[in-house]
């Protein structure tokens, strides 16, 4: 019987290695798989290349992973957000590198990676510093740049509901990068607030078919980043002195 459920976030992250490329879903806090990120901090692998639209906020979630010195490189479109104080420090110190990609190009590169498209042309960024050094091509009189598909060793995403086959549906704008990262991850891990029996989801409304998912872990009450930040929390939690 196919059963992709695993018992814990720790188990869901088995095999993440030093130097791995890890896609992490979410746009800001919406869709951020914060429990998986904290488990990744516990897990210990380092020198990671992380793909996420942003760089986290406060000292929890993605920001905490960066703060822990585990991210060698961020591939993202908008590393400058309210309460994003960790990344600037590591960026300026040269500890964390940045590959800045326009948001739509980032999304399309991830989708291409998952879809077996090695490269594509796009009009986005033509004439700007982000197109410098990239191959250009004129098609039907308009100029485009060549961009390459992106894949990842692991993709960590957050769903609202999942089943043992790995089918996933999402909550509102928390969907954002998750379906395409699920496609692009060699090992895709979903944390879901609800884990339901096979057949409970309407086949018409499944957003991520199970073929794109390798592991499902039940996280019943996922934290919201903004609430943790508002409370001034950090991860790992500071020991009471």
């Amino acid at each position, binding site marked *: 019987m196919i059963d992709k459920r695993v018992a814990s976030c720790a188990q869901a992250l088995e095999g993440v290695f030093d130097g791995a490329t890890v896609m992490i879903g979410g*746009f800001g806090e*919406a*869709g951020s798989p914060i429990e998986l990120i904290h488990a990744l901090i516990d897990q210990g692998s380092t020198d990671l290349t992380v793909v996420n639209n942003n760089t986290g906020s406060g000292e929890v979630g993605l920001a905490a992973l960066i703060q822990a010195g585990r991210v060698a490189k961020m591939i993202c479109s908008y590393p400058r957000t309210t309460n994003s104080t960790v990344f600037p420090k590591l960026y300026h110190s040269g500890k964390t590198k940045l590959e800045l990609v326009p948001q*739509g190009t980032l999304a399309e590169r991830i989708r291409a990676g998952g879809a077996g498209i090695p490269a594509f042309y*796009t009009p986005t960024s033509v004439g700007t510093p982000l197109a410098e050094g990239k191959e250009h091509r004129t098609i039907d009189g308009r100029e485009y740049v060549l961009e390459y598909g992106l894949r990842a060793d692991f993709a960590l995403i957050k769903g609202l509901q999942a089943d043992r086959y790995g089918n996933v549906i999402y909550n509102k704008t928390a969907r*954002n990068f998750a379906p*395409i990262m699920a496609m692009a991850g060699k090992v895709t891990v979903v944390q879901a607030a609800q884990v339901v029996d096979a057949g409970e989801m309407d086949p018409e409304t499944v957003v991520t078919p199970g073929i794109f998912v390798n592991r499902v872990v039940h996280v019943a009450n996922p934290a919201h980043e903004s609430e943790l930040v508002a409370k001034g929390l950090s991860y790992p939690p500071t020991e009471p002195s």
Partner: protein
Amino acid sequence: MSAEQQNAEPQIGWTREQMAQRVAVDIADGSYVNLGIGIPELIARYVPEGREFIYHTENGLLGMGPSPAEGEGEPELINAGKRRVTALPGASYFHHADSFSMIRGGHLDLCVLGALQVANNGDLANWSTGGPEAIPAVGGAMDLVAGVKAIYVVTQHCTKTGEPKLVEHCTFPLTGLGIVNRIYTDLAVIEVTSEGFQLVELAPGVDFEYVKERTGAPLLSMSESPTNATRA
């Protein structure tokens, strides 16, 4: 114009809210619209009587509604500025590749953005001052200007230190080439034509010479309307 002069001047022209309202007047009924962060966000408050606009937010929602009351809303129902919003009847959610297919594929009618600089050939700089200490962050701006059918800019006419933002050549890193159609400032509405900046309308109490002085490139008056007017 020095910062001191700017500070000494009385408040004239349109307020931020009035600028937003003025943009809304020019949006056709039934338009699909993406609003940038800042003044553009205010536009959603001013839908003219008898029109319906559909707002797209690139993080994955078509049919975005107004912000909920302070402290209300949901952390997973947000806009591109990461602020809480609502979804109207007829809305839909989708992933980022689909969202940017709407943008890149030319399906949106209008995008209204803020600006650091606009050149009189339609070039836009709005994502980076290029400073060595700045963390570069581009978001969806380059995708929007490359794909949306019309690009309006709404911005203060000058910087806080009184430097013109409407210029002959952008000195900041570009967002896109030749893509701005119209500019709405606190002082005027200006069309970007094949012959450069063309005044369309003055804010109340503002005259042509006043705007011209504060514009870093030639400005055609309303009577100088070129035959080959609108870009794009």
